[in-house]
């Protein structure tokens, strides 16, 4: 599955660049002291995995404390894609941003996050800044609002490149910026570099943000709903771009999305979130074809496919709890679940192993072979359908793409 690593200029600079991972004098913008320390910590990073354990995020305001995310754990392997899938308000974006420590002091983040052997939550803010944008890239959701409207595209890319010391001089940074824009598939990158954000289309802006995110060769790229604001044709191009970059750079990809179709295209693994918790997690092909949690099944059933017979779209009844509303006892999905039993409302079910590398938080469906056979595949004309053809994927294991 892994294509041979191609040596693009960017690749060469990041993987074999002798400057990386060694002490070097601080650039003009920071005290050398801070950067040296961060370099020391990144020295040991092998093409590393991003591991998040027991993440919990609480928003504190004057009146209340809101638990947006609890007990979330996931791993992004190098070169692989993990899709964090869920509706709005499920806590997926919050999880991604909390991993990057993008929240301020009104937000409590608990748990741990490590990049290779680097403990992200143990770093000081200054050290974390050296990691962000360099070893951990972030592609924000709203391309229009995420670029400084008053600065040219090329300048914004070059700024990051110079900040992290990938290039030292203005000219070199400018040239690298143009290279990066070309690498993300922007035609006429020289002209685009001189343009302002408002002069570009949404797809171009998104690519520019991707260019910024990969500019320093990150080990893992976190993309927050990168395709939501784009139309379908552009979406496909952007996803293809991610795949190509992964091949070229060997980086891991954490993609946050609510779009099942996107997940189907890119996911090596899928983690499904609902009401701030993980409800299912496993290989993409398996989760998306033989879900072990009723919510996942519902998500899949709500997506039209060529096989969906007329009148066969099944929406999940009810509404998810408002973002952050805390469910005290029992499974958060119980009210909307066709399979719920008494026990479901008493205790919040833990994630349990339901297959090789596949966990789900549903003892009713996931825990029983019969239940899973019943639930497997899109629900048509009712919450339970037996023997329905599974969309598109003919074998449970195999590349999702």
């Amino acid at each position, binding site marked *: 599955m892994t294509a041979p690593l191609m040596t693009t200029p960017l690749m060469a600079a990041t993987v074999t660049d002798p400057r990386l991972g060694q002490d070097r004098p601080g650039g003009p913008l920071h005290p050398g002291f801070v950067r040296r320390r961060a370099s020391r910590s990144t020295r040991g990073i092998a093409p590393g995995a991003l591991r998040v354990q027991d993440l919990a995020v609480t928003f504190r*305001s*004057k009146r*209340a404390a809101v638990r947006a995310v609890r007990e979330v754990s996931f791993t992004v392997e190098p070169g692989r894609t993990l899709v964090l899938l869920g509706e709005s308000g499920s806590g997926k974006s919050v999880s991604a941003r909390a991993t990057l420590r993008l929240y301020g002091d009104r937000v409590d983040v608990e748990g741990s996050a490590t990049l290779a052997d680097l403990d992200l939550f143990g770093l000081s803010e200054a050290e974390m800044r050296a990691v962000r944008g360099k070893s951990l890239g972030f592609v924000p959701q709203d391309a229009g609002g995420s670029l400084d409207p008053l600065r040219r595209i090329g300048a914004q890319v070059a700024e990051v490149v110079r900040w992290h010391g990938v290039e030292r001089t203005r000219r070199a940074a400018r040239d690298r910026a143009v290279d990066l824009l070309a690498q993300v598939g922007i035609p006429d990158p020289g002209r685009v570099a001189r343009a302002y954000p408002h002069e570009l289309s949404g797809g171009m802006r998104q690519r520019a943000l991707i260019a910024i995110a990969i500019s320093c060769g990150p080990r893992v790229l976190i993309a927050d709903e990168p395709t939501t604001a784009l139309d379908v044709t552009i979406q496909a191009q952007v996803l293809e771009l991610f795949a190509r970059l992964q091949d070229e750079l060997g980086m891991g990809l954490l993609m946050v999305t609510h779009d099942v179709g996107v997940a189907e295209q890119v996911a090596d693994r899928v983690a499904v979130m609902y009401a701030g918790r993980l409800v299912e997690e496993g290989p993409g092909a398996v989760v998306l074809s033989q879900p072990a949690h009723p919510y996942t099944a519902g998500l899949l059933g709500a997506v039209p496919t060529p096989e969906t017979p007329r009148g066969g779209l099944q929406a999940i009844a009810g509404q998810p709890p408002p*973002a952050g*509303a805390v*469910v*005290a006892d*029992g499974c958060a999905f119980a009210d909307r679940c066709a399979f719920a039993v008494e026990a479901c409302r008493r205790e919040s079910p833990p994630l349990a192993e339901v297959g090789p590398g596949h966990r789900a938080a549903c003892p009713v469906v996931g825990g029983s072979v019969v239940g899973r056979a019943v639930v497997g595949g899109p629900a048509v004309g009712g919450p339970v359908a037996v023997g329905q053809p599974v969309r598109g994927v003919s074998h449970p294991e195999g590349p999702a793409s």
Partner: protein
Amino acid sequence: MSVVELPASLPDLPVPGIGGTARATHRRHIPLTVIIPGTFILLLILAAIFAPVVAPYGPTAGSIANRLQPIGSPGHLLGTDEQGWDILSRLIWGARPSLLEGIVPVVVAGVIGTFLGVVAALAGRRTHTLIMRCLDVLYSFPAVLLAIALAAALGAGVVNAIVALSIVLIAPIARVAETEVARIRSADFMEAARASGASWPSIVVRQVLPNIGPVLLVYCTAMVGLAIVFAGGLSLLGLGVPPPAAEWGSMLSTLDQDLYTQPVLALIPAIMIFVTSIAFNVLGDGLRDLLDVRSETVS
């Protein structure tokens, strides 16, 4: 299963109302920023109306032998001016023209300006351009200068000052009205009203005005404060109300001439205008919170 708490930061759900912009939760309590200045202004208006009863002396009662008594003199809480007249009384009597010079221009300009703004926003392109260009001409003058030029041309006197100020205020009010109407022009409820066959006048009265009303009210409240300040300034220049009539601006003008003998006295009408201006401004802010007005035109 129990839901423990809802986050306080949840946005309220929009409630479809006549105007489509109502909020589900209305403020149950009136904020202090409305009560305090509102009370002050109310008392001021009452004092002005009942001046003969409230003021200790008449506006021109006194003898010149008693001139320029300092604050706290017996019988004259705020002293006397250069003619020997009691300042406190003149302050109360002066509230009449000063408040009129503030409120009347805003009402007049409010009506005319709103009309022009609504028409400009809803009528065809040519009418819009015509009206906006004419307003632009007025707008191309600093407001103070326009007021002075018009007042100078028309001559002194309360009525002329009011006319001048009205003309000056038409353009800004029209502009706010036009911006607001343009903003809601393409809203769903407007299309619904038109589709249901309602005539333009009824649409304006029943859909447009209730929606732009709050913004205009907030803006005009602040404008009253501004108009009072302008009126005071006109009197300072010798336009506006001529002595011996009591008016805050003209009191300021005459007392300023004796600045070196009794400096503090001149401050009294100055502070009066200042405080009244603050009151109207804060009231405007308070109304904006109370009516939950969210618009970039009223910052």
